[in-house]
């Protein structure tokens, strides 16, 4: 197979995953939330338990009028949803699905790449918030910036811990080095990474920037139609990315409880990603939104010291072994 054919195939596979998995997660969220709250959720679209609800939503979004407020900064306003979506698409390129190179683009420093690209997402929030020329949007954007700047720190520190344990920055390399007892050793880092990841993608209970009961809809207030759909899609892709990263870094990626990793590795990865995504949805139903000061307090007084302690623990065990 020529190089470019393989490259195109890999990119196409990633784009396919990018277009289907977030919709799957969105549908799961509709149904899981509904059942946890004693409702049925979507039941009509597509006849069987409303499986086509999100497709119907997509069609509806396309038909809506695309409004740009008169006072808005047009080019920035229009660009922001794309900037929100693009980093997550790029991140999916380096997430390994299975052993022996079942990854779109293996990178020597994949972990660093992922952390830096995920960090770009906050620029889109600021762009959307400011360009909307709306007080609620601006407040939401400022909250988002404060939140993301803070939570970036425990996020990176927790990832650094597992990179130190594995002795490599390559994502397949980390899965390769992973052992089941790391579940215990790296447990605090996993919790920190997961919580900070939730804050990074602004999911409840960390949805202060959106906070629909106080800020209308935060930085997305002025968006309509397809551009709004882009933001919603970015949220679902965010769940996918955080789920996949937690899986790869802390849950052993393609490694299963019994052999057959070479054949079933991709399935293990997908099952683990689905499980983590389910927990993310569960969090939304289970916990109320944090207040702004509680949010910052949790980050700086709990997560950052814990992450530093975990780093010390990682070094101690690593040196002792």
């Amino acid at each position: 197979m020529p190089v470019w054919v393989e490259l195109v195939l890999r990119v196409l596979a990633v784009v396919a995953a990018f277009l289907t998995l977030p919709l799957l997660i969105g549908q799961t969220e509709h149904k899981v939330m509904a059942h946890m709250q004693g409702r049925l959720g979507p039941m009509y679209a597509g006849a069987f338990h409303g499986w086509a609800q999100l497709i119907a939503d997509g069609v509806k979004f396309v038909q809506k009028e695309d409004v740009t407020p008169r006072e808005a900064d047009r080019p920035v306003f229009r660009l922001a949803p794309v900037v929100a979506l693009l980093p997550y698409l790029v991140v999916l390129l380096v997430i390994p699905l299975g052993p022996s190179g079942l990854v779109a683009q293996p990178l020597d420093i994949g972990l660093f790449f992922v952390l830096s690209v995920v960090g770009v997402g906050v620029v889109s929030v600021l762009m959307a918030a400011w360009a909307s020329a709306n007080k609620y949007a601006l407040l939401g954007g400022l909250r988002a910036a404060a939140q993301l700047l803070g939570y970036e720190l425990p996020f990176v520190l927790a990832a650094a811990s597992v990179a130190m344990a594995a002795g490599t920055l390559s994502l397949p390399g980390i899965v390769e080095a992973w052992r089941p007892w790391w579940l215990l050793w790296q447990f605090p880092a996993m919790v920190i990474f997961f919580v900070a990841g939730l804050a990074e993608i602004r999911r409840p209970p960390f949805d202060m920037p959106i906070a629909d009961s106080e800020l209308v809809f935060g930085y997305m207030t002025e968006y309509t139609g397809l551009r709004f759909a882009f933001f919603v899609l970015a949220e679902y892709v965010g769940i996918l990315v955080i789920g996949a990263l937690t899986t790869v870094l802390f849950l052993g990626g393609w490694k299963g409880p019994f052999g057959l990793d070479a054949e079933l590795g991709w399935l293990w990865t997908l099952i683990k990603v689905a499980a983590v995504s389910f927990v993310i949805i569960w969090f939304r139903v289970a916990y109320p939104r944090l207040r702004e000061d509680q949010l910052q307090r949790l980050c700086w007084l709990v997560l950052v010291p814990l992450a530093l302690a975990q780093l010390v623990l990682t070094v101690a065990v690593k040196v002792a072994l």
Partner: protein
Amino acid sequence: MTTADLLLVALGAVAVGAGVLVVSTRHIVRAGLWLVVNLLAVAGCYLVLAAELVAWVQVLLYVGAVVVLLLFAVMLTRAPIGASDDLDRPRWPGALIGGGAGLGLAALFVSGYRWSRVDLPSPGTATALGEQIFTAWVLPFEVVGVLLLAALIGAIVVSRPDIGSR
């Protein structure tokens, strides 16, 4: 010209263009956004030069943190939409100093290297960089660490009136 050369020139042009827009645009927040474009283009240059780690550190720190902090501060204080005509910018001194420094450096490099070919060193992988830092450059690394720690503590003392000088 190889593909790498072409890419480098293109990214360099983007970086310079965005850089000029940063200082010449009348929209304050857009200046910050152009800075993002500029920094990303410079990161792209690093990538072409096979310094992967430096490139992603640039994106993580500068785009993900420094520019965001900058935009955050601008939006907290004064960030009107549309052009601000009352910005006081020392245009000519600025252009003179910036252009002069750029041209001077370019002239220095051209006279220093002429058209001699310099082979790229081995790619700046994380392993190679780590080995260098923790063997040949340990002392500078530690000194920088202490310096940053001092700056951190200094910032805390300055920003908290209850523990500063009374």
